[in-house]
Every structure is written in structure tokens, then in C-alpha cells.
């Protein structure tokens, strides 16, 4: 595939922005090494667009110079962060990863409920860490509501949704969304769990919102992270990229400690833990990967 930039950069040749330029694969590898996020071939054009936008910002007119900026300049860290920001723009939407939701409902949930069936308090706790404007926790809530008359009958579901950004949290609590956020939402869910807000927006119904507790939380705040105990499943998608190596390790260790034994951590669909914590077991589910905290008693069947 060859994509050329439609925006262009003053003085740049058209072929500077071609996917055939090996620099973009080098940048892809660098991003993976730094952040654990893999840009699949079919989405390389998004990386190219992100690089193009950054190159315009920093007034660089060829890919080689931009590569040097990411690799060797004193500004390489802030530039990498800015590039990662560009890459993850617009990533959030409802039903972002159906394979993750299927794994949660079809495989993990039955396993968790079996494991917890002897406990007196029948409660499942899920944490959407870095929930942004709320698409992820609302999606999780709708999927779990679908199980409320089945597997989850008699169980309490508690979804903790946290983010650092107050404005995002306000939007999440309001639960009002436009077409773009709902682009992957099946009609069934739109009809069942949303009401019309205005011509262009739908609002999540109260029964969905009632399952979720929104809170401001900085994942770097060690003291508060210690309080997030007893979690069964954590979703933390495309959030770790914003942390440096040491903070990332700390956050992942907190996640490990906050999870119950037998719990799972999901990252973004093309994101990996890069061995930041050797205690987690990588698990493959159909179309999705997750990290499992081993039970005290057993290894994975």
C-alpha cells in the first residue's frame, strides 16, 4: 500500500510521505520498544498521518530528519510523547474491541464466577483505568447488564472508572455521545441502552450509568493506588504509553497487587506489557490477549 499525504508540508516532495519509506517501519519499531504499542501494517497509514502532523508542528520537512529528532535530539522524549498522543487520538469509542468483550463474557466471567461462588458476598469488580470520556466503562456495563438475567443473576457488578482529567470525567458522567463515539456500537445496544438526547447525540440510560462509579485518580499516586483492592478485571487501554519506564513499572505492579488472584488485566488491542512485570501470565483468547494474575492454588488449566 502506498499512501501519500494530502496535507503535505511546505517544500516537501510527495514521496517523502510514502509508506514505502523504510523510516516509518523504523518509527513503528521504536514506538513498540518505547511504549509496547504495535502499529499493524493495515494501520501504518495512521502512523504516517501522525508523523506528518508532527513534522508540520516541528517544521521538519523530511522523514530522516524527523527520525533523528525522535532518536537523538535533546527533545526526543517530549517529541515521542507528542507523537504517541497523535497516534491515540480518536482511539476511544464504544465497543472498541469486540474480541476483548467476548473473552470477558464468554470465558473470563464464567471462570471468575466459578472461582468466587463460595464467597459470601457475590460481587464482581471491574476497573476501567484511564476511562477518558467514559466509552469503555459504559460498554463494559452494557455487556454485563446483558448477563444480569443469566450468569450474573444474584451478583452485584461494580465498575470503577477513573481518569486524571476532570473534564473527561464530567463528560463521562453526562454520558452523551455523538455518531463518531458510537460508530462501532451494534444497533441492538443503541436501542436498548441509549435514549435520544438531541438530533446528533444519544445519552446512556441511567441503569447503565448506575453500575459505574466515576472518580478522579492519578495512576502515579501510590497512596491512592494502594486502595484499589479486590479488583477482578482491569481495563487499561492505551494509557501506559504516557508514562516513563519507571512509572510504568510502578503502575503495572500496582495493577498486579490490586487484582484478586485469578484476575485479568487488559491493555489496548495492539499493546503489550513488554515484560514489565514477570508475575503476570500472558493469556491468548480468540482475537485478544490479556494478562492473568495466577491463583494461589493452581496453574492455568
Amino acid at each position, binding site marked *: 500500500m502506498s499512501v501519500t499525504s494530502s496535507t503535505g508540508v511546505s517544500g516537501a516532495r510527495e514521496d517523502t510521505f510514502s509508506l514505502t519509506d523504510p523510516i516509518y517501519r523504523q518509527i513503528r519499531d521504536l514506538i513498540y520498544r518505547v511504549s509496547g504499542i504495535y502499529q499493524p501494517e493495515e494501520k501504518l497509514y495512521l502512523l504516517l498521518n501522525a508523523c506528518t502532523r508532527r513534522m508540520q508542528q516541528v517544521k521538519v520537512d523530511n522523514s530522516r530528519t524527523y527520525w533523528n529528532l525522535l532518536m537523538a535530539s535533546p527533545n526526543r522524549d517530549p517529541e515521542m510523547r507528542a507523537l504517541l498522543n497523535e497516534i491515540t487520538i480518536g482511539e476511544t469509542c464504544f465497543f472498541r474491541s469486540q474480541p476483548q468483550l467476548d473473552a470477558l463474557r464468554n470465558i473470563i466471567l464464567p471462570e471468575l464466577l466459578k472461582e468466587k461462588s463460595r464467597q459470601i458476598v457475590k460481587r464482581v469488580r471491574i476497573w476501567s483505568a484511564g476511562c477518558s470520556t467514559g466509552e469503555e466503562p459504559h460498554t463494559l456495563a452494557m455487556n454485563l447488564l446483558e448477563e444480569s438475567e443469566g450468569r450474573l443473576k444474584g451478583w452485584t457488578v461494580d465498575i470503577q472508572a477513573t481518569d486524571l482529567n476532570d473534564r473527561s470525567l464530567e463528560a463521562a458522567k453526562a454520558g452523551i455521545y455523538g455518531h463518531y463515539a458510537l460508530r462501532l456500537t451494534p444497533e441492538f445496544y443503541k436501542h436498548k441502552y441509549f435514549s435520544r438526547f438531541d438530533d446528533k447525540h444519544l445519552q446512556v440510560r441511567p441503569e447503565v450509568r448506575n453500575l459505574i462509579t466515576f472518580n478522579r485518580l492519578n495512576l502515579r499516586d501510590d497512596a491512592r493506588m494502594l486502595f484499589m483492592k479486590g479488583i477482578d478485571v482491569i481495563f487499561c487501554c492505551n494509557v501506559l504509553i504516557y508514562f516513563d519506564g519507571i512509572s510504568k513499572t510502578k503502575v503495572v505492579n500496582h495493577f498486579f497487587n490490586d487484582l484478586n488472584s485469578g484476575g485479568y488485566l487488559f491493555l489496548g488491542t495492539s499493546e503489550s506489557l513488554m515484560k514489565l512485570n514477570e508475575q503476570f501470565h500472558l493469556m*491468548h483468547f480468540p482475537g485478544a490477549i490479556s494478562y492473568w494474575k495466577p491463583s494461589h492454588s493452581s496453574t492455568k488449566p
Partner: protein
Amino acid sequence: MSASLESSLRERVDRIESTPAIPAVFLPLLNLLQSQSSASLDEVARLVAYDHAIAAQCLRVASSPLFGLAKAPESIRAAVVMLGLRRVETILLTCCLGNAFSTRDWPIDAKTFWTHSLGCAMASRRFSAKLACCDSDKAYLAGLLHDIGFMVNCIVFPDETSVAVNLAHERQIPLHQAEVATMGFTHSASGKALAEKWHIADDIVQVIACHHLIEDGRSSSPLVALVHLIDLLCRMRNLGYGYYESHGVDLQGDPAWATLVAENKNFDELDIERFTFEMDDSLAEIHQLVNIIFA
């Protein structure tokens, strides 16, 4: 498996050999590929000369982006010069296999089956090349042929296989478990019978016969371990049998992983997530190849 069941299986498998659809070039090619001394270009060219359709298909595959050739080869000879003899032989064999059997009335979509086999072949080759744990062409062949018994079952036990496939779909369980539940034996047993009939090399027969037995904790060769892991991985990454398998897979906790770690000290360093993402990247190419070969 009981002795009577085994003998009935062999009897039915015997009939496959008389199937007229197997290209004449298939078994000699298989022998060439398995021979220790490498075949000569002339031998391969002579064999392929018998079957122009296979030769043309081979050239279309060799020209696909997967092999990254700047210029499409115009003859088998040119393809060998550009890609090497072994690579061309494996392409030829893949093409032959796709043409070998009538896929009418199979209980699953034949293209889905071939996509799984070809996906396993390509991923096994890539994995072994990365780790230098097995000969990579051998790994390709083992991946391609590992489920050949399922093809046998589709041909000689169509009704029973159909019941097994339906059960696997309905309960979302691995196919071999559904086969045991409904037929009392798996595609591994029928594959072994055919592989022995065709005098396939012992190490590949082992893969065909034992790639599911590792789950029972049996020790295995690195090649069996490799194909077992790749089979699991493919089934988790949209390269399975076209239905949802409702279970998780812990590759690093699998006994096959321990077998490969024992053989290769660097194995634990392998970035399995990245390997998984790269495998996803090759999905489109695998589908494209299947469309060329098994259309």
C-alpha cells in the same frame, strides 16, 4: 483407540490413495522434499512439466507480495533462482495439496481449513527461523500437513465428522475434543494412517500424530512442540477452523513451551506478543495465498 477401529481406519484410508484427483507430481515431490540430499533443479522442473496447472499456480504464488520479489518469475527455473529450490518445492507441494482432494460436501469450508494449515505452515517457519529451534522448511511442511487427518476424516467419515464439527461449534470446544466425544478418535489418528501410507518422514508423522497429545503431558520433539504451539496460537488469532473456541491459551504455561525452552536457552526471551501482532499482519497475505492456491 481400539485395534478394530484402527484397522477399519486404515482400510478406509487405503481407499484415499486410489483417488484420481491427487496430482501425479504430489508424492514424488513430497519424497524430494524429504530427501536428505537436495534435489536438483532439473528433477523438480521435470516433475512439474507433467502438470502445467500446478506450475502456473506456483508462479502466481511466487509472484505474490509475500515473497517480496521485485519481478515476477516467468518460469519454475527462474523462481528457483530467485527463491531457492527448497522454497519453490514447498510452494509446489502446497499447490498440489490444494488440488489433491475434492472438497465437495466437506463439513467445514475447505478454504478455512487450508487457511489454518497454511497459516500454521507460515507461522511455524517464521517461528523456527526466529529461534533456530528446528529446520525452517521442515517446520513449514509440518505446519502444512499437521491436520491432514481432518481432510481424511472429511473424505472417509463425512457424516461422523459433520457431527463432530457441529458439536465443536455448538459447545465452542476444540475440534479434537469434539472428535473424541463423537467418533472416539481424532484427526491425528487418521492423519497418521495416511502419512504412513504416503511414507512421510517419521518426524512429520510424529507432528501429525501427536500435536494434540502434548496437552496430556506427553514428552515431544521440538518440532511437535513447535507445531502444537503454533496451532494453538493460530486458533486464537483468526486462523482457526472458523468458529469461536471458548477458552484461553497460556502458551508459556504449556508443556510444549518447556520443551522448546530446554532446547533453546534464548527461548524465554522471545517477545511472544510481538510475534502475535506480526502474525496478524500476515493474515491478509495468507488469505490472498489461499485464494490463489485453493480457489
